[in-house]
């Protein structure tokens, strides 16, 4: 009986275009849109070696003081490295202007009664070049000043002038690195898990005789309602879990979003999140009467919960956590994203298991509501 009902329910779900669209394609579409939208944002802040032009002159060319400083942070010495701040192209003024015009360089440096910088606009690269030149000029002027005013102090102070002390130290508290974009995808996956609730509403409609003639016919069969509920919901759950795992695989393997290395626990989070979504839908299904209202609750609830979890703005998740901590503990999307977050950033799993435990409790509450209402065997009206 289980196999019979399970297989046919799965068939009905797979052939319901709306369910497949909202569950699978909507999430894939969103993931793709997020990827392109946020990868551009990431590109703008991602550092790349800056191409600059250097106009050939005795004060700037090889052997000069400026050239030796520039070589230490660029490939001006002929040695290319990933850590180079600048890629230097040496030539005449005309050549440099042509390179700037065609966008091959972000700016060029020449000497005319002092160090001059020519750029074609303002931006990240131009600011870096200018900062470098300013710092060079400032240091040069400082050293010159010391030589003129107090040559005896030069050897004492030169080390302080030349040294830059970095008061920040980079340390990693997570087993992985960090990925700003991942936060959006956590919320997206949370939404994929919870959107399963819409399909569950339909599953419940198939079981309540007061909601559909189909359900009335099914209720006349000699199969216990609770068993039918289990059969139907198993099929729905299986479908939704596969859908979320497809979305997860797409995000991780195709879009290349880094979720960390705890793949097993990531999958577990997806499964528990989907179970929560499915039972959220069944509880809404048994409590509501109008189909429109039920869909509004499930879709609205899913999107609102995902919004609080940072689907539309990453700052929202932190705002909720800081100002409305209770909401962050009862909002399923928040718990799902937090579980992903914990897996990614924390060495320990305490916070992860806390999130999973709360999700399980919420699922249990929704499931209990569903079962209690479904226990009602006869209806006041059909």
């Amino acid at each position, binding site marked *: 009986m289980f196999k019979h009902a399970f297989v046919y329910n799965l*068939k009905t779900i797979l052939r319901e275009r709306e369910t497949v669209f909202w569950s699978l394609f909507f999430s894939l579409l969103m993931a793709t849109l997020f990827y392109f939208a946020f990868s551009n944002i990431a590109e703008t802040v991602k550092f790349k070696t800056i191409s600059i032009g250097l106009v050939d002159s005795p004060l700037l060319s090889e052997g000069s003081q400026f050239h030796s400083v520039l070589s230490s942070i660029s490939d001006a010495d002929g040695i290319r490295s990933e850590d180079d701040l600048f890629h230097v192209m040496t030539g005449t003024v005309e050549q440099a202007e042509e390179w700037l015009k065609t966008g091959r360089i972000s700016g060029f440096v020449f000497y005319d009664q002092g160090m001059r910088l020519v750029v074609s606009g303002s931006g990240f690269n131009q600011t870096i070049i200018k900062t470098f030149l300013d710092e060079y000029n400032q240091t040069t002027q400082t050293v010159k000043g010391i030589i003129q005013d107090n040559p005896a102090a030069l050897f004492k102070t030169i080390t302080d002038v030349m040294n830059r002390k970095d008061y920040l130290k980079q340390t990693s508290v997570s087993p992985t690195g960090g990925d700003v974009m991942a936060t959006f995808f956590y919320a997206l996956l949370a939404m994929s898990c919870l959107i399963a609730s819409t399909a569950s509403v339909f599953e419940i409609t198939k079981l309540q005789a007061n909601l559909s003639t189909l359900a009335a016919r099914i209720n006349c*069969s000699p199969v216990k309602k609770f068993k039918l509920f289990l059969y139907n919901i198993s099929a729905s759950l299986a479908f939704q879990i596969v859908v979320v795992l497809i979305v997860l695989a797409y995000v991780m393997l195709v879009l290349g979003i880094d979720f960390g290395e705890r793949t097993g626990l990531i999958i577990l989070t997806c499964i528990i999140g989907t179970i929560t979504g499915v039972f959220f839908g069944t509880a809404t299904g048994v409590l509501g009467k109008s189909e429109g209202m039920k869909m509004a609750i499930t879709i609205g609830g899913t999107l609102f919960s995902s919004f609080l979890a940072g689907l539309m703005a990453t700052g929202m998740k932190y705002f909720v956590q800081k100002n409305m901590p209770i909401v962050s503990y009862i909002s399923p999307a928040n718990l799902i994203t937090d579980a992903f977050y914990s897996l990614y950033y924390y060495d320990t799993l305490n916070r992860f298991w806390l999130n999973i435990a709360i999700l399980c409790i919420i699922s249990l509450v929704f499931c209990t509501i569903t079962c209690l209402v479904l226990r009602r065997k006869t209806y006041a009206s059909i």
Partner: protein
Amino acid sequence: MISVKNLVKRYGDLVALDHLNLDIHEGEIFGLLGPNGSGKTTAINCILALLKYSKGTIQVMGKQMTPQSYDIKRHIGIVTQDVAVFEELTVYENIDYFCGLYITDKAERASLVEEAIVFTGLEDYRKFYPKKLSGGLKRRLNIACGIAHKPKLIILDEPTVAVDPQSRNRILEGIQELNAKGSTILYTSHYMEEVEMICTRIAIMDKGKIIASGTKNELKSMISLGEKITVEAFGLNGEGTAYLKALKGVLDVDYSDNTLVVKSQRGRNNLVHVLDYLKSNNITFNKIYSEMPTLNDVFLEITGKELRD
């Protein structure tokens, strides 16, 4: 097979079933006839333990019918008023799904599904989805889903609503065939011709009550009307209708739109007298019908309104 005693069902102030009593015997085709809103579907939903009722008892197959009466439900087939099938499953899959709720053995089920397909004439539509079927074919699928498991008791709630005449005849013949094979049938309809054609016993419902029950002849014998003569006549005047009204045993005379209707008491045959009068008074007439009373006449005489009102 079904015994309903003093069943009362209220929707707020509205009394949908008012001390309803029904006794349906094994092997019969029992017709529940009544206008829309008379309480037929409500009665069926109560019998099937889908609806709560305020008062009364319902027994099916000798046992109290409750939502947990799975041993009774196993032997019941239901054909709902609205087509209740999965739009996402094909004809074959739908029948197999519903049959599978009753029959777990796969081989047995395959044979039963095939039988139901042949029985309802859906052989050419096995792989069709319901949305591709005509209204009549959908109704046949609805029936196939309800009878595939060969139930002892089949409840059909207005199965021929919005069905073309060809499909309707096929459905009615099918119901008689199912009965001949041993199933007890409870058939509800507001089409008196159908009920008259296939039912062995009939109960007429109105406003949640059984107002009359028995065989069709028993029902007709309950009313005073015995014959209804309809003649297409031209130029009959008030004097003529008064004369006809005065004939022995005539209950009512109506003349409008060149149609003369003369109703006589049971046991009286006034056809000859009516025609004699028309001839002797040179009144031209064409078509003549003499009818026995219908169930509509029974309903009309008891309630004072037409069955289709």
